């Protein structure tokens, strides 16, 4: 049987770097997930992840049911989208989203009468057994349910679960680290729905044909660890790994290193070391997709920060305007200075509360000036704190300086690339620790973009 001890001595962590920003989870970690009333309108973006946008299947004035397919996947790295509400299509047009300034979205006016599309269950069928379905059928179910990684990057799940021929996967890791400050959506899901997360993990396990599933949870969530320990009785293949609370514990490569001791080679994917990582939210979505035939139309999102009246964990329909979710939390306060989709370390600052919640929106943070001060950038003093903090073993100060002082011929950009520029995972640890407030991640992002031009 697996470990049940959550002691400090046997907790795991990654091999290099890392920081420990204030966790700031106190406002919401003990709050049960709430479901707000449906908004009047939803905007469902056709592109919610890297890869190709979905192709709209509905037009103006079409009536749609909750869970109905409204956008089909195009190409390999693509996921379908479904109506998250019942209503009437008001428009198919470009709206501002977290993905670039504008992206095509289906706008649906929510009807008074709500009905689910055919075949979607509210409770699992007692007679249903996972053994009844072949792994291929399970994979197809996830694909048609529009599953993407729920941790933030929103990479289509079926792609990650389809290793190329010849690659054997021997480890499936469930990512329950939730190392971003403020966010408690995964935490609450693990505490409240551990059994269903584990049932979803069983689906993923069968698709990959691996025996064991490892779940990694930072040790600041003892109740989530306890919930898994209880669920383990019904899932003897589950291995629970308490992780040190250290950012970025939940970064894919760092999590793999912490749990398996394996290091994903530079420029390679986790499957090269036989590992697939899935977020606990994705496992829950897999449960819904297979046991309830329910597509991904809803997710848990943490609404927090000092500029929102009542921080909460909300189960939100995809496409819900952020403003509606914030209103349910008592609204924004005057001190609001930054609105972030995601966590404070890797999330995106957006300019409007009209942005829709997407499949990868793990949090909506309303930060005050004090929580997220805009500090003047000074010259690097070469203190090397960023070098110590980098979980990828890079030298962020040099990378940023090379980008800043590149004269336009891209010679220094190329040198930065030789030093591992493109291995940066943009976790922000260096930027966080920097005493001269260098915008290291921003410089590195710019450098990556410039380097893409060099390669052309």
């Amino acid at each position, binding site marked *: 049987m*697996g470990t049940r001890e959550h002691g400090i001595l046997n907790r795991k962590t990654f*091999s*290099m770097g890392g920081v420990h*920003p204030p966790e700031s989870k106190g406002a919401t970690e003990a709050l049960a997930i709430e479901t707000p009333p449906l908004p009047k309108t939803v905007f469902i973006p056709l592109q919610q992840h890297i890869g190709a946008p979905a192709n709209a299947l509905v037009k103006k004035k079409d009536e749609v049911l909750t869970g109905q397919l409204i956008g089909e996947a195009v190409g390999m790295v693509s996921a379908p989208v479904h109506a998250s509400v019942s209503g009437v299509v008001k428009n198919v047009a470009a709206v501002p989203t977290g993905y670039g300034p504008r992206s095509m979205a289906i706008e649906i006016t929510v009807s008074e009468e709500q009905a689910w599309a055919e075949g979607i269950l509210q409770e699992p069928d007692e007679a249903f057994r996972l053994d009844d379905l072949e792994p291929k059928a399970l994979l197809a179910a996830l694909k048609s349910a529009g599953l993407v990684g729920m941790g933030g990057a929103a990479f289509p799940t079926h792609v990650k679960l389809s290793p190329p021929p010849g690659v054997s996967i021997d480890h499936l890791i469930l990512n329950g680290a939730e190392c971003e400050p403020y966010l408690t959506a995964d935490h609450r899901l693990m505490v409240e729905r551990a059994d269903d997360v584990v049932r979803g993990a069983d689906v993923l396990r069968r698709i990959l044909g691996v025996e064991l599933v490892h779940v990694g949870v930072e040790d600041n969530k003892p109740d989530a660890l306890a919930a898994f320990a209880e669920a383990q009785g019904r899932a003897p293949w589950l291995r629970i*790994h308490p992780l040190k609370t250290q950012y970025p514990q939940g970064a894919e*490569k760092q999590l793999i*290193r912490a*749990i*398996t*001791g*394996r*290091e*994903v*080679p*530079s420029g*390679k994917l986790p499957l090269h070391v036989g590992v697939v990582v899935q977020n606990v939210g994705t496992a829950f979505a897999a449960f819904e997709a297979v046991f309830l035939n329910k597509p991904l139309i809803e997710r848990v999102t943490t609404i927090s920060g000092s500029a929102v009246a009542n921080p909460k964990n909300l189960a939100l329909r995809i496409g819900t305007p952020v*403003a509606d979710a914030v209103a349910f939390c008592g609204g*924004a306060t*005057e001190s609001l*200075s*930054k*609105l*972030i989709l*995601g966590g404070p370390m*890797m*999330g*995106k*600052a957006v*300019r*409007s*509360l009209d942005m829709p919640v997407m499949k990868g929106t793990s949090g909506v*943070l309303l*930060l005050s000036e004090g929580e*997220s001060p*805009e500090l003047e950038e*000074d*010259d*690097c*003093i*070469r203190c*090397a704190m960023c*070098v110590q903090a*980098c979980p990828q*073993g*890079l*030298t962020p100060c*040099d990378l940023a300086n090379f980008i800043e002082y590149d004269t336009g011929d891209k010679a220094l950009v190329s040198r930065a690339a030789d*030093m*591992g520029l493109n*291995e940066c995972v943009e976790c*922000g640890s260096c*930027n*966080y*620790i*920097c*005493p*001269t407030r260098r*915008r290291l*991640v*921003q410089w590195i992002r710019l450098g990556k973009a410039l380097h893409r031009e060099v390669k052309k």
Partner: protein
Amino acid sequence: VSKLTQKLILSSSPHASGPESVPRIMYVVVLALLPAVVAAILFFGMKALAVMLVAVVAAVVVEALILMLRGESAKRAWRRALDGSALITGLLLALNLPANSPPWMVVIGVVIAIGVGKHVFGGLGNNIFNPALVGRVFLLISFPALMSTWMKVPEAGTERWNAPFESLDSLTGKVEGVEAFTEATPLGLIKTQKNAALGVKETQARYGRDIKSFLPLLIGKRGGSLGETSVLALLIGAIFMFWRGVIRWHIPLSFIGATLAVTGMMWLIDPSIYLNPIYHLLTGGLIIGAFFMATDMVTSPVSPMGMIVFGAGAGILTAVIRLWGSFPEGVSFAILIMNGLVPLIDQKFHPRRFGVGPEPGNKTTQEAHNG
């Protein structure tokens, strides 16, 4: 809501910044230097305090004036001049001067340190050489006599020499108001004698040769610059810096280790003409250099391996200059030479990148299964 969103700030992640700042780092170093400051006052009296005050005030004023010359507003210039970095340069320079340095010489040293050592290169963060050492070496070359006139300390073997703590007051009293002596430092003795063998004998006669006689050296009863003499006070400060994470072990350990290795090897080969390495450790500027000057963030490498190479290089150069150079002391020159090599070291040595090179882990795969 629209009113709220008008002022929303858009910026690249991360949206959180940690507690570190330049003043925070710099004032940790200033605090770490306080034991040495106190020791300097105890051993060398009010003259020492005067030298330090002149240096610190001059450093902050010169920093602010140069920043204004470079186009900063007065408000910003003063804020930056008070961020602690200029203060450290001034204080470190003072601690590397003899107690009887005249104020005008101290000011010249500060102007060179801040002006030439720091701002010619672009100010904080951009200088190649440790500013305090640039100032010190300038003074050493320009005013060699003043820079090697040390205050007298009690004779070895006398009651006051053997009573390390009780005598501090009277020692202070005695030195004050007394003319400066041209007394050689322990390392200086060996260079001023007719030959090395005589120098070794003289040093041993003057400072003793057994473990017991090293204790006064550890506390700081010897000729030398203000801040370098009390190894004990410097180590207290160094431990504080380690604790606050401002310095790491790589540079001090490789620096001291390399100096001890080279001087120790020569001593083992011929103890009649080479000093016991304990002298090299406890006298001269090795401790202040290794912990407080070679560790200067701006002028040292950023990778752990680079730091070790840098420290070891400085340690070897220190030993070579001390043993075979014409100067009795080599720490300042050694650090400055290695400062010049930092860009090359940083280009050559990097941390091991994640997923590059030897791949760990397959051994632990089984553990994960059993986990």
